[in-house]
């Protein structure tokens, strides 16, 4: 699936929790790529492996988890294999991350000036006055009103939306080539979410950063992304541009997810389409296709064989046997 302009390309990534007796396959054979200036959406439910994928890219995995296979090619280098020192050069500098909860990811005992300066000084040699100017510039960029007066404020003195803006300022401190945003608006109210999404769009246009946007909200995906990867139980099940995914979803999970959204299926009365069953437990993964116990189109082979990616249309991939005869 590689393209010449890929900024990041993840190939056959497997990240496991090395538990006994058998490992938990949190990310299982995930491949995708992000081009320069592109926004890729990674959508899935809790436990589908989206955050673990992001943490693998930055090698910020918890101790019990390990990348056991695969490549993460970024600027020609395989991040899965570079030394820790080289990795530190990438983190926060070339690739940075925004987390879901701005309250727990900012340090409560330092003011925002310190926290933003810290991100700059970790990678750049600058004079104090230059750093100060840059901090002001960043706060202005993310739309904090009268930033001069707020430099000495602590995170608790900001509202949720403002805190998320500060997180974004820290993430942008070194002009990263790739921004990983993990559920950046989930903790925010709709009107504030709209403000933050608008800000991210503006910044994308201004700076040209590529974005890996992780969310469970299909509305946010539709609003922001160029391409989408749908994750289910540690695997990408569908991968295509945003218009194809929403207009012509192919994997039964994607189809079900879209049909089960309230407000979309007019004419069906008060009943929503629903995907039966529960999200599988990572420890006891179903055999064959991981979605088969919940699938409305399940066939015999789905129970025993794991489907590979099939090309449904050019650049539209689906991990489902329904498309096996297309090839």
């Amino acid at each position, binding site marked *: 699936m590689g393209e010449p302009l890929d900024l990041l390309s993840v190939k056959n990534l497997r990240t496991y929790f090395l538990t006994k007796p058998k490992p938990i396959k949190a990310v299982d054979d995930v491949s995708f790529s992000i081009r320069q200036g592109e926004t890729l959406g990674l959508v899935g439910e809790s436990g589908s492996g989206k955050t673990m994928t992001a943490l693998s890219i930055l090698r910020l995995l918890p101790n019990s988890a390990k990348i056991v296979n695969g490549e993460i090619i970024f600027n020609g280098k395989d991040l899965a294999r570079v030394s820790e020192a080289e990795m530190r050069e990438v983190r926060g500098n070339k690739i940075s991350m925004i987390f879901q909860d701005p309250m727990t990811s900012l340090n409560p005992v330092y003011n925002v000036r310190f926290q933003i300066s810290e991100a700059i000084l970790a990678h750049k040699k600058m004079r104090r006055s230059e750093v100060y100017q840059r901090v002001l510039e960043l706060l202005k960029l993310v739309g904090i009103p009268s930033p001069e007066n707020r430099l000495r404020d602590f995170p608790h003195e900001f509202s949720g939306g403002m805190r998320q803006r500060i997180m974004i300022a820290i993430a942008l401190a070194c002009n990263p080539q790739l921004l990983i945003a993990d559920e950046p608006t989930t903790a925010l109210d709709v*009107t504030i979410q709209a403000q933050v999404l608008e800000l991210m769009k503006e910044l994308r246009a201004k700076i040209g950063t590529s974005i890996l946007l992780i969310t469970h909200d299909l509305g946010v995906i539709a609003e922001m992304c160029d391409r989408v990867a749908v994750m289910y139980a540690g695997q990408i099940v569908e991968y295509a541009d945003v218009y194809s995914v929403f207009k012509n979803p192919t994997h039964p999970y994607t189809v079900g997810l879209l049909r089960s959204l309230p407000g979309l299926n007019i004419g069906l009365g008060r009943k*929503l389409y629903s*995907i039966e069953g529960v999200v599988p437990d990572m420890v006891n993964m179903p055999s064959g296709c991981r979605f088969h116990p919940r699938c409305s189109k399940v066939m015999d082979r789905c129970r025993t064989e794991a489907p590979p990616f099939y090309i449904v249309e050019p650049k539209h991939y689906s991990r489902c046997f329904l498309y096996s005869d297309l090839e």
Partner: protein
Amino acid sequence: MRSREVLVETVDLVKHFPVSAGLFKRVRSGVKAVDGVDIKVFKGETLGLVGESGCGKSTLGRLIIKLLKPTRGCIKFDGIDVTKIPDKQFRPYRRRMQIIFQDPYASLNPRLTVSGILGEAFKVHKIVDSRQERRKRIRELLETVGLAAEHADRYPHEFSGGQRQRIGIARALAVNPEFIVADEPISALDVSIRAQILNLMVDLQEKFKLTYLFIAHDLSVIKHISDRVAVMYLGRIVELAEKGELFTKPLHPYTQALLSSVPVPNPELRRDRLLLKGEVPSPLNPPSGCRFHPRCRYAKDVCVKVVPEFREVWGGHYVECHLAPDLH
């Protein structure tokens, strides 16, 4: 199914939470969580209550079923003012009004089995006497909400989020209520599970002729399940109308902005949004006049000075705005 018969009504309902400060914990001020709410819930309908966090929607829900004591105002249930009834005599009313909580992880006692949780409701209200009868009822209840009879002896931690929410619903149904306050019942659940629970709630409403006050921050859910919708902002209802009317002809600038803020799951409908300036002001000290005026793009002098009246613009469409209905 829906009638014009009022089941629940609030009259100028107010709840202020005192904030104490200083050495002797003197009450300095109050958080005006609910500040003068008049709503009616008709028998058999679903009234959706939507608003952002901190607007007072959960407090209102709890006030209505008397889990909280109002500072002022009254609540009428089936025509009777229940505000002043002492707790003991209130019990027969309590049986008729129940609540489903948001977080199915926090609202079930981890030390009780499912039959223990459901059995408590029977004991408190002295509905089922014999043990066998109780077991039978519990089995029926579990089947009603889509669980199996053998789940009765398990503990909450053995269930997934969606299943726990089914237990929460079963607990509410145990006493055959007429009115259920559903406080964000699906927002803690996974996307693919939400539709299951919404469908279950619709089924139960038809089966048991329930009346719902459905509280949510997610407009698409509200749009799906409600018959009428009330929009809340800083402790007050700012707009109330039939669902179709509210979503096509929102009159209050806040409702308009709220509707415009929701990301639509269709990439072909990307659009310019009506972005709201600033954030929700503190309910400790709400703005003068119309509470929405600092964020309102149409605000005029009168909005700063005069508190607008919650009035009926036309049939069943209420709005609290000086400038409506000319803004649509």
